[in-house]
């Protein structure tokens, strides 16, 4: 069994307007020392997944089913108190906007000390020394002095470093980063991505990075999971997703994105329409109203949910189109278009 395994995880929220199926049957696994990138647009369910793994939906209104196995322990059926004990220690999280994610009334040091002392019975003095140590390790200059600063006295990049120091303070084996660089400037983003890569090697933790930015995913991930409407629609090694993508949605994402590493294309190839509302996910394949190839599914597009099937060596695709047709479309139409100048 892998270090982290999700089996058919479902997280649904009953609301006055109907059932919101934020995560609808997610299955994947992740080993220590490797990185999974979860890509999706707003409302794809990627953030709900991460909070679900940490057990932060427990005790709320959410209906959770399926299994989450972390290091041989099942977490969906575990008690809230037990999962709380794992949070911050065995699994930790980094959030998008470090200014709003840190408490404005407490110093950065106090917040790291708090995180450490939940799981370690040490004196405040020892914990403070550890906090200074962690701040130094994430590259904050003069950590002995900065430990007493408040979050608003830090710059954006420094805040995110402090947030990372806090998340790593108990040496977690699973680290989830939800849009960790979206709120940062591009030069600072590069520093933080480097830092996360280095720290992951050092701590040998399993890393899940959640983002809408394919560039960020490509920088860090070994495996990539593309989410749409609460489901995984394509999963594979980073090379599979970037060099041999088979789902029209993945093609659409690649075609939507202007790239600095290629010749400039005359025209972007966007996906028509908007991401679906999770209350009202289209029947059949959730992507079919936006899919340019929905007429090639023998009429199954809006009647049958396609299964997530292996196409080759761990590369999974959820699409009604036959494999040969997808491959030939990619090779003969999509790929040349993405690369034309």
């Amino acid at each position, binding site marked *: 069994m892998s270090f982290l395994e999700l089996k058919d995880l479902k997280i649904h929220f009953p609301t006055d307007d109907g059932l919101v199926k934020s995560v609808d049957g997610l299955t994947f696994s992740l080993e220590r020392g490797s990185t999974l990138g979860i890509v999706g*647009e707003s409302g794809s369910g990627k953030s709900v997944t991460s909070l679900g793994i940490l057990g932060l939906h427990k005790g709320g209104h959410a209906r959770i089913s399926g299994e989450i196995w972390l290091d041989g322990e099942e977490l969906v059926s575990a008690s809230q108190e037990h999962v709380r004990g794992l949070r911050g220690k065995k699994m930790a999280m980094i959030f998008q906007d470090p200014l709003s994610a840190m408490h404005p009334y407490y110093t950065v040091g106090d917040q790291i000390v708090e995180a450490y002392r939940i799981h370690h019975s040490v004196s405040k003095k020892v914990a403070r020394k550890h906090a200074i140590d962690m701040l130094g390790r994430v590259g904050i200059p003069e950590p002995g002095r900065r430990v007493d600063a408040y979050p608003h006295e830090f710059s954006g990049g420094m805040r995110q470093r402090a947030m990372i120091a806090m998340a790593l303070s108990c040496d977690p084996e699973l680290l989830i980063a939800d849009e960790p660089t979206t709120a940062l400037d591009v030069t*600072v983003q*590069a520093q933080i991505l480097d830092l996360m890569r280095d720290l992951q090697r050092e701590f040998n933790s399993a890393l899940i990075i959640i983002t809408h930015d394919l560039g960020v995913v490509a920088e860090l991930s070994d495996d990539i999971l593309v989410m749409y409407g609460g489901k995984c629609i394509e999963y594979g090694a980073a090379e599979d997703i970037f060099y041999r993508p088979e789902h029209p949605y993945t093609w659409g994402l690649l075609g939507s994105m202007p790239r600095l590493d290629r010749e400039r294309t005359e025209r972007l*190839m966007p996906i028509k329409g908007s991401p679906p509302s999770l209350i009202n996910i289209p029947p059949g394949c959730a992507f079919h109203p936006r899919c340019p190839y929905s007429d090639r599914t023998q009429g199954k597009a809006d009647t049958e949910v396609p299964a997530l099937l292996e196409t080759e060596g761990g590369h999974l695709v959820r699409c009604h189109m036959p494999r040969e047709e997808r491959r030939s479309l990619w090779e003969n139409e999509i790929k040349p278009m993405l690369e034309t100048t």
Partner: protein
Amino acid sequence: MTTPNEPLLSVQDLQKYFPVTKGLLKRQVGAVKAVDGISFDVFKGETLGVVGESGCGKSTMGRLVTRLLEPTGGKVLFEGQDITHMSQGRLRPLRRDMQMIFQDPFSSLNPRHTVGAIVGAPFRIQGIKTEHGTKKAVQDILELVGLNPEHYNRYPHEFSGGQRQRIGIARTLALKPKMIIADEPVSALDVSIQAQVVNLLEDLQNELDLTYVVIAHDLSVVRHISDRVAVMYLGKLVELADRKDLYESPMHPYTNALMSAVPIPDPARRNDRERIRLQGDVPSPLSPPPACRFHTRCWKAQAICKVEEPPLVELATRHQVACHFPENVPQEAAEAVSA
């Protein structure tokens, strides 16, 4: 009226200082030099992209040019007319010609007004009568930006983020402007929607003969959409060149570092790129470094960078840069610099 080689918009040594006060009496102790002496021209039909990180003054610049903010110094000329300190009354007819698109499609639309009222507002404000009535005119515009004209009576919350940005664009197009200043027009949108809006902006430019200034932090989007690109750092223009020149042979170390920092969506290149990694964050615009403002983060900085501010000079055809030690400089220009 402009002749072909006369700029539609000309910005000369534009400055905006926000006062900083301190102490009991709120004495002014300094100023945030948000925009500190920048000059550039925008020609009819082209798109000028403006990139930079937070605090570089790009948004302030956009607001100065459209006179949403009052400049501290310098000049803004629109079609040869000095609008720097023009009164709001005299400015009103010019507002038809110069419109602004904002980043946030959620907060820039009044939730209590229908789409028809929002897009039709410019007609009312400017007191313009159209041939078949305002409604018809508005519906034509809605169709132009790819919205259903029958949605005339709907409210903003009934639309998705991308559609709302289209409403915002429709509003700016109502009076057939000559120029549109777009401040981060796609950064709040999902990736697949970003591309739709970028394409729409390009189509409208061709169809309506528009001139754009696009302000954005995303270098890939700016490269895609712009003819010329300006790079800003801490209130200064550090490089201005044609798109191809800027992206293929950037002269300013900062431009180079910016492009090097953009994550590349290609897993094979994650380790083999020669990356330039800048140290630290952008310094606070409250106390920017003296002389060349980039010298604190620049790996090429020498003693002169700390004492003398490099002027913005043209080192290649239509390629201006403000640096003591520029890169990718043609031979003859390099000799001229060292001489």
